[in-house]
């Protein structure tokens, strides 16, 4: 499917862009692209939700941005910095500007909650400070502030593997915000959580990123949650963007085009 079913010009394009993606291709095996020329500009604020069936390249798209996955070709610009082709120190300096929240939280299980939150500063502090846990006082203050904000004020010294799923994702959000990121990528952040916890975590993510003016790109399976929290929905299918517009514009026929079939609706 190649035609973009754009319902209305996304309001986001009028604002300054935090992230611009142009002509992004990714092939894990040569000749079989997972991403087929993605063009996407993300505004400097608000939540952009990417929806689409499993295996359509949503995770690959997010991972190309912070280069956990190497794009095959295309451009990705973070506030003017070209991210593709960065290596070594330059890549690390770019990564620390991009926060990421993962589906399975990806906390370091055997470290404490505080160590996990402070690991968000690893791109900023020298190795010896990280090794000896001698973080700058300002970082520690911010870590406690974020733990309060995500509702885990008493858990700083507990090990991450002692927490529940919802608590872990809260720590994951605190770790990402600890980076003071210019953009936050969230890859299915609520898919491993029960429905009520999912809403609570998403609510928290929306509130904190709005308070800190961090734009968010979120991959999400739950279309209702996407419509509720995002100001813009991007629908992907078969490695291409086939819908891009505000939540109100997302109609049944768009969903049929994105997910295929109609019996499930």
């Amino acid at each position, binding site marked *: 499917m190649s035609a973009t079913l754009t319902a209305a010009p996304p309001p986001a394009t009028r604002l300054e862009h935090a992230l611009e993606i142009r002509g992004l291709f990714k092939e894990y095996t040569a000749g079989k692209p997972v991403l087929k020329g993605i063009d996407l500009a993300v505004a400097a604020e608000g939540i952009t939700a990417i929806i689409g069936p499993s295996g359509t390249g949503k995770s690959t798209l997010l991972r190309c941005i912070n280069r*956990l996955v190497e794009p095959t070709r295309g451009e990705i610009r973070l506030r003017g910095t070209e991210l593709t082709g960065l290596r070594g*120190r330059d890549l*690390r*300096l770019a990564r620390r500007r991009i926060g990421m929240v993962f589906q399975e939280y990806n906390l*370091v*299980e*055997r*470290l404490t909650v505080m160590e996990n939150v402070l690991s968000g*500063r690893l791109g900023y502090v020298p190795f010896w400070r*990280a090794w000896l846990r001698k973080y700058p006082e300002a970082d520690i203050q911010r870590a406690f502030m974020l733990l309060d904000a995500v509702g885990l004020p008493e858990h700083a010294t507990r090990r991450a593997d002692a927490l529940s799923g919802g608590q872990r994702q809260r720590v994951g959000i605190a770790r990402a915000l600890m980076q003071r990121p210019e953009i936050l990528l969230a890859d299915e952040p609520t898919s491993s959580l029960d429905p009520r916890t999912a809403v609570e975590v998403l609510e928290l993510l929306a509130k904190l990123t709005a308070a800190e003016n961090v734009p968010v790109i979120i991959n999400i399976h739950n279309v209702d949650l996407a419509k509720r929290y995002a100001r813009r929905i991007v629908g992907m299918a078969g490695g291409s963007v086939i819908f891009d517009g505000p939540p109100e514009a997302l109609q049944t026929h768009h969903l049929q085009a994105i997910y295929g079939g109609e019996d499930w609706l």
Partner: protein
Amino acid sequence: MSATHPSPEAARRVAFAPNWPMRLALLAIVAYAIWASSRLGLSWDRLGHGLGEGGRLLARMVPPNFERWGLLLEGMLESLQIAVLASAIGIAISLPLGVLAARNLSPWWISGPVRAVIAVCRSLHYVIVAILFVKAIGFGALAGTAALVVASVGFIAKLFAEAIEEISMKQVEAIRATGAGVMKVLAYAVLPQVASRFIGFCLYQLDSNLRNSTLVGIVGAGGIGGTLFAAFKRFDYDFVAAILLSIIALIFLAEIISGRVRAALR
């Protein structure tokens, strides 16, 4: 027909296929064992004769003779020093080697050669390595220590690498995404996942080095082994018994201590 009643065909179906290769292999092993023991002259007569000789040796070992305790203590302490030093140096070398050999963290052109080095360290028995070192750098504790360092590297560097290959890469990915470099990823994402297993391996290697350090002396590489070998050659079987009892006591002590440490880490 209701689904819960087996049909006549179902009764004839086989739930477990006969494993003919396994049956044939077992048969072959038994046949080979019988043939090999007849070739080696292992008969009940030979066994009875051997047991009689063994009884005479045991009789001469009792009571153990601790009169030369000074010599015994000196040898035991040297063995202990060899074991502790070899373990410490071996662990220090194995840590970086283990990381470099782990195929999930190192590119193949690094992990391949490093794995080869570790395999070479493993391939020769430590007594052979000890003989080589005695010939190369002379009699004494240095040769024994060097031999056990090689053995330790061959063993724990491989275990380190395998432990690192089993870690969750999701945690590594998350730490990488914060902009952390190699050393910070090792300190925050890899080490926390493997630290307790590493300590277990190190304790195990210390145990094993204690045992091995009592033997390298036999080839002249220092420690209680030399004293033991000399006592055997002079037919001082009561002193031999004293040495063996001391070794057993040392190993037991080491096992108890390392068991306690391991339990505390869990």
